Protein backbone atom coordinates (compact mmCIF):
# COMPACT_ATOMS: atom_id res chain seq x y z
CA UNK A 1 0.00 0.00 0.00
CA UNK A 2 2.79 2.35 0.93
CA UNK A 3 4.56 1.53 -2.30
CA UNK A 4 1.49 2.38 -4.33
CA UNK A 5 1.06 5.57 -2.36
CA UNK A 6 4.67 6.52 -2.97
CA UNK A 7 4.31 5.73 -6.64
CA UNK A 8 1.26 7.92 -6.77
CA UNK A 9 2.84 10.74 -4.84
CA UNK A 10 6.37 10.71 -6.18
CA UNK A 11 5.99 9.00 -9.50
CA UNK A 12 6.95 11.97 -11.57
CA UNK A 13 9.80 14.18 -10.57
CA UNK A 14 9.59 17.60 -12.07
CA UNK A 15 12.84 19.37 -12.73
CA UNK A 16 12.26 23.02 -12.71
CA UNK A 17 13.94 25.75 -14.67
CA UNK A 18 13.19 29.20 -13.43
CA UNK A 19 13.10 32.01 -15.98
CA UNK A 20 12.59 35.64 -15.11
CA UNK A 21 11.80 37.73 -18.16
CA UNK A 22 11.59 41.16 -16.64
CA UNK A 23 9.77 40.69 -13.35
CA UNK A 24 10.43 42.66 -10.18
CA UNK A 25 12.16 39.73 -8.38
CA UNK A 26 9.26 39.28 -5.95
CA UNK A 27 8.11 36.02 -7.51
CA UNK A 28 11.74 34.80 -7.65
CA UNK A 29 12.02 35.18 -3.92
CA UNK A 30 8.75 33.34 -3.36
CA UNK A 31 9.90 30.48 -5.62
CA UNK A 32 13.18 30.26 -3.73
CA UNK A 33 11.17 30.37 -0.51
CA UNK A 34 9.26 27.32 -1.71
CA UNK A 35 12.56 25.47 -2.11
CA UNK A 36 13.62 26.03 1.51
CA UNK A 37 13.24 23.23 4.09
CA UNK A 38 10.19 24.93 5.55
CA UNK A 39 8.11 24.43 2.41
CA UNK A 40 10.11 21.50 1.12
CA UNK A 41 9.16 20.89 -2.50
CA UNK A 42 11.77 18.18 -2.92
CA UNK A 43 9.28 15.79 -1.33
CA UNK A 44 7.42 16.03 -4.64
CA UNK A 45 10.65 15.42 -6.53
CA UNK A 46 10.93 19.02 -7.62
CA UNK A 47 14.46 20.14 -8.16
CA UNK A 48 15.82 23.42 -9.42
CA UNK A 49 18.16 23.01 -12.37
CA UNK A 50 20.30 25.63 -13.99
CA UNK A 51 19.83 24.77 -17.62
CA UNK A 52 16.64 24.55 -19.67
CA UNK A 53 18.03 21.44 -21.39
CA UNK A 54 17.66 19.48 -18.13
CA UNK A 55 14.25 20.80 -17.25
CA UNK A 56 10.69 19.51 -17.53
CA UNK A 57 8.97 22.59 -16.21
CA UNK A 58 9.64 26.25 -16.87
CA UNK A 59 8.51 28.68 -14.19
CA UNK A 60 7.98 31.99 -15.97
CA UNK A 61 8.02 35.12 -13.89
CA UNK A 62 7.47 38.56 -15.24
CA UNK A 63 5.74 39.59 -18.44
CA UNK A 64 7.06 38.92 -21.91
CA UNK A 65 9.08 42.03 -22.59
CA UNK A 66 10.29 43.37 -25.87
CA UNK A 67 13.92 42.79 -24.91
CA UNK A 68 13.58 39.34 -23.34
CA UNK A 69 10.89 37.65 -25.43
CA UNK A 70 13.38 36.22 -27.86
CA UNK A 71 15.56 34.76 -25.10
CA UNK A 72 12.47 33.29 -23.43
CA UNK A 73 11.47 31.68 -26.70
CA UNK A 74 14.93 30.20 -27.14
CA UNK A 75 14.93 28.83 -23.60
CA UNK A 76 11.56 27.23 -24.26
CA UNK A 77 12.76 25.66 -27.47
CA UNK A 78 15.82 24.27 -25.70
CA UNK A 79 13.68 22.28 -23.27
CA UNK A 80 13.09 18.64 -24.21
CA UNK A 81 9.47 17.73 -24.66
CA UNK A 82 7.15 16.89 -22.92
CA UNK A 83 7.39 20.23 -21.26
CA UNK A 84 5.18 22.35 -19.07
CA UNK A 85 5.14 26.11 -18.62
CA UNK A 86 3.92 27.62 -15.37
CA UNK A 87 3.07 31.31 -15.30
CA UNK A 88 3.86 32.45 -11.76
CA UNK A 89 2.53 35.81 -10.64
CA UNK A 90 0.15 38.28 -12.14
CA UNK A 91 2.77 39.64 -14.54
CA UNK A 92 3.21 36.30 -16.24
CA UNK A 93 -0.51 35.51 -16.11
CA UNK A 94 -1.86 38.77 -17.46
CA UNK A 95 0.94 41.19 -18.17
CA UNK A 96 0.96 42.96 -14.85
CA UNK A 97 0.20 46.58 -14.13
CA UNK A 98 2.24 47.82 -17.09
CA UNK A 99 0.64 45.40 -19.54
CA UNK A 100 -0.07 48.08 -22.15
CA UNK A 101 3.15 50.02 -22.05
CA UNK A 102 5.66 50.25 -24.83
CA UNK A 103 8.25 47.72 -23.71
CA UNK A 104 5.84 45.05 -22.43
CA UNK A 105 4.38 42.69 -25.00
CA UNK A 106 1.90 41.21 -22.58
CA UNK A 107 1.39 37.95 -20.73
CA UNK A 108 3.74 35.04 -21.29
CA UNK A 109 1.01 33.18 -23.15
CA UNK A 110 1.51 35.50 -26.11
CA UNK A 111 4.95 33.92 -26.60
CA UNK A 112 4.70 30.43 -25.10
CA UNK A 113 1.85 27.97 -24.59
CA UNK A 114 1.19 28.22 -20.85
CA UNK A 115 -0.23 25.15 -19.17
CA UNK A 116 -0.83 26.37 -15.59
CA UNK A 117 -1.46 29.79 -14.16
CA UNK A 118 -0.62 30.79 -10.58
CA UNK A 119 -1.92 34.33 -10.02
CA UNK A 120 -0.81 36.48 -7.12
CA UNK A 121 1.42 39.47 -6.67
CA UNK A 122 3.57 37.73 -5.55
CA UNK A 123 1.89 34.35 -4.98
CA UNK A 124 2.51 32.87 -1.57
CA UNK A 125 4.86 29.85 -1.47
CA UNK A 126 1.81 27.79 -0.53
CA UNK A 127 0.07 29.01 -3.67
CA UNK A 128 3.02 27.94 -5.83
CA UNK A 129 3.10 24.53 -4.16
CA UNK A 130 -0.66 24.30 -4.67
CA UNK A 131 -0.23 25.01 -8.36
CA UNK A 132 2.41 22.31 -8.68
CA UNK A 133 0.16 19.93 -6.75
CA UNK A 134 -2.69 20.70 -9.16
CA UNK A 135 -0.34 19.87 -12.03
CA UNK A 136 0.72 16.61 -10.36
CA UNK A 137 -2.91 15.70 -9.70
CA UNK A 138 -2.64 15.65 -5.91
CA UNK A 139 -5.34 18.24 -5.32
CA UNK A 140 -8.18 19.70 -7.34
CA UNK A 141 -8.37 23.30 -8.41
CA UNK A 142 -10.63 25.48 -6.31
CA UNK A 143 -11.49 28.41 -8.56
CA UNK A 144 -14.40 28.55 -10.97
CA UNK A 145 -15.71 31.43 -13.08
CA UNK A 146 -18.45 33.53 -11.47
CA UNK A 147 -21.18 34.95 -13.67
CA UNK A 148 -24.15 36.93 -12.47
CA UNK A 149 -26.92 37.61 -14.95
CA UNK A 150 -30.16 39.52 -14.69
CA UNK A 151 -33.05 37.08 -14.88
CA UNK A 152 -35.36 39.60 -16.56
CA UNK A 153 -35.65 43.27 -17.35
CA UNK A 154 -37.42 44.87 -14.42
CA UNK A 155 -38.68 47.87 -16.43
CA UNK A 156 -38.94 48.24 -20.21
CA UNK A 157 -36.13 49.91 -22.12
CA UNK A 158 -36.08 53.65 -21.99
CA UNK A 159 -36.39 54.40 -25.70
CA UNK A 160 -36.73 50.98 -27.26
CA UNK A 161 -37.77 52.47 -30.59
CA UNK A 162 -34.48 54.36 -30.94
CA UNK A 163 -32.50 51.13 -30.99
CA UNK A 164 -34.27 49.74 -34.01
CA UNK A 165 -32.54 50.52 -37.33
CA UNK A 166 -35.68 51.42 -39.34
CA UNK A 167 -36.73 54.08 -36.81
CA UNK A 168 -33.27 55.61 -36.91
CA UNK A 169 -33.35 55.97 -40.64
CA UNK A 170 -36.78 57.58 -40.49
CA UNK A 171 -35.64 60.19 -38.00
CA UNK A 172 -32.50 61.15 -39.82
Amino acid at each position, binding site marked *: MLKNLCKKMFGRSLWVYHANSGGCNGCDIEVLNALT*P*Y*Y*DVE*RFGIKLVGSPRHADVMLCQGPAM*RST*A*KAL*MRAYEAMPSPKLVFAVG*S*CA*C*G*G*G*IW*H*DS*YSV*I*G*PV*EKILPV*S*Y*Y*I*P*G*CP*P*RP*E*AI*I*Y*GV*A*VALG*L*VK*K*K*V*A*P*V*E*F*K*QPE*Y*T*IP*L*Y*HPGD*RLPENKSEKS
Partner: protein
Amino acid sequence: MSVMSKIKETIICLKAGRVTLPYPADPQPAPPAFRGRPIFDASKCIGCGGCAGNCPAREILLLDICQEIRILKYLGRRCAYCGRCADVCPEKAITMSKEFENATDTIGDIGQTLELFMSTCQRCGRCFKEQSPLEQLKMKGYRFDDMQNERWIFRSQSYLGDAPFTDDIKIEME
Protein backbone atom coordinates in the same frame (compact mmCIF):
# COMPACT_ATOMS: atom_id res chain seq x y z
CA MET B 1 37.28 20.44 17.90
CA SER B 2 35.68 20.32 14.50
CA VAL B 3 34.24 16.88 15.29
CA MET B 4 32.74 18.26 18.51
CA SER B 5 31.13 21.15 16.67
CA LYS B 6 29.65 18.75 14.11
CA ILE B 7 28.19 16.66 16.91
CA LYS B 8 26.76 19.78 18.53
CA GLU B 9 25.17 20.80 15.24
CA THR B 10 23.68 17.34 14.86
CA ILE B 11 22.17 17.54 18.33
CA ILE B 12 20.67 20.96 17.57
CA CYS B 13 19.19 19.64 14.33
CA LEU B 14 17.77 16.58 16.05
CA LYS B 15 16.21 18.72 18.78
CA ALA B 16 14.44 20.89 16.25
CA GLY B 17 12.63 17.89 14.80
CA ARG B 18 10.62 18.17 11.62
CA VAL B 19 9.94 21.72 10.47
CA THR B 20 8.51 21.04 7.01
CA LEU B 21 4.87 21.91 6.57
CA PRO B 22 2.72 19.06 5.24
CA TYR B 23 1.15 21.62 2.98
CA PRO B 24 -1.20 20.27 0.30
CA ALA B 25 -2.49 17.57 2.62
CA ASP B 26 -2.89 19.98 5.53
CA PRO B 27 -4.39 23.39 4.68
CA GLN B 28 -2.51 26.42 5.89
CA PRO B 29 -4.58 29.46 6.86
CA ALA B 30 -3.44 32.85 5.62
CA PRO B 31 -2.25 35.49 8.11
CA PRO B 32 -4.94 37.94 9.32
CA ALA B 33 -3.79 40.96 7.29
CA PHE B 34 -3.54 38.96 4.06
CA ARG B 35 -5.41 40.17 0.99
CA GLY B 36 -6.48 37.48 -1.41
CA ARG B 37 -8.91 37.36 -4.30
CA PRO B 38 -11.57 40.12 -4.31
CA ILE B 39 -15.14 38.84 -4.28
CA PHE B 40 -17.80 40.92 -6.02
CA ASP B 41 -21.27 40.93 -4.51
CA ALA B 42 -23.79 41.53 -7.28
CA SER B 43 -26.66 42.18 -4.87
CA LYS B 44 -24.86 45.16 -3.31
CA CYS B 45 -23.16 46.57 -6.42
CA ILE B 46 -24.76 49.75 -7.81
CA GLY B 47 -22.56 49.84 -10.90
CA CYS B 48 -20.91 53.18 -10.25
CA GLY B 49 -17.66 52.06 -11.86
CA GLY B 50 -15.43 53.42 -9.11
CA CYS B 51 -13.50 50.18 -8.90
CA ALA B 52 -12.96 50.22 -12.66
CA GLY B 53 -11.67 53.78 -12.54
CA ASN B 54 -9.33 53.12 -9.63
CA CYS B 55 -7.84 49.77 -10.60
CA PRO B 56 -4.10 50.30 -11.16
CA ALA B 57 -3.88 47.22 -13.37
CA ARG B 58 -6.91 48.42 -15.40
CA GLU B 59 -8.48 45.01 -15.37
CA ILE B 60 -12.02 45.79 -14.21
CA LEU B 61 -13.86 46.46 -17.45
CA LEU B 62 -17.22 48.09 -17.95
CA LEU B 63 -19.50 47.69 -20.95
CA ASP B 64 -22.84 49.42 -21.28
CA ILE B 65 -24.71 47.21 -23.70
CA CYS B 66 -27.88 49.29 -23.43
CA GLN B 67 -29.38 51.97 -21.27
CA GLU B 68 -30.29 49.62 -18.46
CA ILE B 69 -27.71 46.87 -18.42
CA ARG B 70 -24.08 47.43 -17.53
CA ILE B 71 -21.61 44.55 -17.60
CA LEU B 72 -18.79 44.66 -15.08
CA LYS B 73 -16.04 42.18 -15.80
CA TYR B 74 -13.24 41.41 -13.40
CA LEU B 75 -10.49 39.56 -15.22
CA GLY B 76 -8.37 38.58 -12.22
CA ARG B 77 -5.40 37.69 -14.33
CA ARG B 78 -3.30 40.79 -13.77
CA CYS B 79 -4.76 41.69 -10.38
CA ALA B 80 -2.11 42.85 -7.90
CA TYR B 81 -4.49 42.32 -4.92
CA CYS B 82 -3.92 45.90 -3.77
CA GLY B 83 -7.44 46.27 -2.37
CA ARG B 84 -8.09 49.69 -3.89
CA CYS B 85 -11.38 48.55 -5.40
CA ALA B 86 -12.59 47.42 -1.98
CA ASP B 87 -11.48 50.73 -0.48
CA VAL B 88 -13.24 52.87 -3.04
CA CYS B 89 -16.49 50.89 -3.21
CA PRO B 90 -19.26 53.03 -1.64
CA GLU B 91 -21.55 50.08 -0.98
CA LYS B 92 -18.84 47.72 0.30
CA ALA B 93 -19.79 45.25 -2.41
CA ILE B 94 -16.17 44.12 -2.88
CA THR B 95 -14.50 42.15 -0.11
CA MET B 96 -10.91 41.01 -0.16
CA SER B 97 -11.12 37.34 0.72
CA LYS B 98 -8.28 35.20 2.01
CA GLU B 99 -8.31 32.82 -0.96
CA PHE B 100 -4.84 32.42 -2.38
CA GLU B 101 -5.02 28.93 -3.89
CA ASN B 102 -6.04 30.25 -7.28
CA ALA B 103 -3.89 28.00 -9.45
CA THR B 104 -5.73 26.91 -12.56
CA ASP B 105 -5.12 25.62 -16.05
CA THR B 106 -7.56 27.97 -17.79
CA ILE B 107 -7.19 31.66 -17.08
CA GLY B 108 -10.91 32.31 -17.41
CA ASP B 109 -11.53 30.54 -14.13
CA ILE B 110 -10.47 33.48 -11.99
CA GLY B 111 -12.68 36.03 -13.73
CA GLN B 112 -15.99 37.32 -12.47
CA THR B 113 -18.70 38.83 -14.65
CA LEU B 114 -21.61 40.81 -13.26
CA GLU B 115 -24.60 41.95 -15.28
CA LEU B 116 -26.02 44.93 -13.42
CA PHE B 117 -29.36 46.57 -13.78
CA MET B 118 -29.04 50.36 -13.92
CA SER B 119 -32.12 52.48 -13.41
CA THR B 120 -32.20 55.68 -15.43
CA CYS B 121 -33.41 59.18 -14.82
CA GLN B 122 -36.64 59.63 -16.77
CA ARG B 123 -35.76 63.23 -17.65
CA CYS B 124 -32.19 63.03 -18.89
CA GLY B 125 -32.02 59.31 -19.65
CA ARG B 126 -28.67 58.85 -17.95
CA CYS B 127 -27.82 56.20 -15.42
CA PHE B 128 -26.82 58.61 -12.66
CA LYS B 129 -25.82 62.23 -12.35
CA GLU B 130 -22.24 63.16 -11.70
CA GLN B 131 -21.60 65.36 -8.72
CA SER B 132 -18.72 67.63 -9.61
CA PRO B 133 -17.35 69.06 -12.89
CA LEU B 134 -14.16 67.11 -12.28
CA GLU B 135 -16.06 63.84 -12.18
CA GLN B 136 -17.90 64.84 -15.33
CA LEU B 137 -14.54 65.35 -17.01
CA LYS B 138 -13.38 61.96 -15.82
CA MET B 139 -16.29 59.91 -17.11
CA LYS B 140 -18.70 61.19 -19.69
CA GLY B 141 -21.54 58.98 -20.68
CA TYR B 142 -20.93 55.41 -21.56
CA ARG B 143 -17.86 53.32 -21.54
CA PHE B 144 -17.19 50.73 -24.17
CA ASP B 145 -14.30 48.67 -22.94
CA ASP B 146 -13.02 45.96 -25.20
CA MET B 147 -14.14 42.61 -23.81
CA GLN B 148 -12.51 40.65 -26.62
CA ASN B 149 -8.99 41.93 -26.16
CA GLU B 150 -9.49 42.63 -22.44
CA ARG B 151 -8.34 46.23 -22.57
CA TRP B 152 -9.61 49.62 -21.66
CA ILE B 153 -10.48 52.03 -24.40
CA PHE B 154 -9.25 55.48 -23.53
CA ARG B 155 -11.41 58.36 -24.67
CA SER B 156 -8.41 60.45 -25.60
CA GLN B 157 -6.88 57.90 -27.98
CA SER B 158 -8.05 56.49 -31.23
CA TYR B 159 -8.02 52.73 -31.12
CA LEU B 160 -8.18 50.00 -33.69
CA GLY B 161 -9.85 46.79 -32.64
CA ASP B 162 -7.45 44.04 -33.56
CA ALA B 163 -4.20 45.99 -33.56
CA PRO B 164 -1.77 44.74 -30.90
CA PHE B 165 0.21 47.21 -28.86
CA THR B 166 3.53 46.14 -30.22
CA ASP B 167 3.58 44.60 -33.62
CA ASP B 168 7.29 44.38 -34.21
CA ILE B 169 7.80 41.25 -32.07
CA LYS B 170 7.47 39.13 -35.19
CA ILE B 171 10.38 40.96 -36.73
CA GLU B 172 12.50 40.43 -33.63
CA MET B 173 11.72 36.72 -33.50
CA GLU B 174 13.31 35.94 -36.82
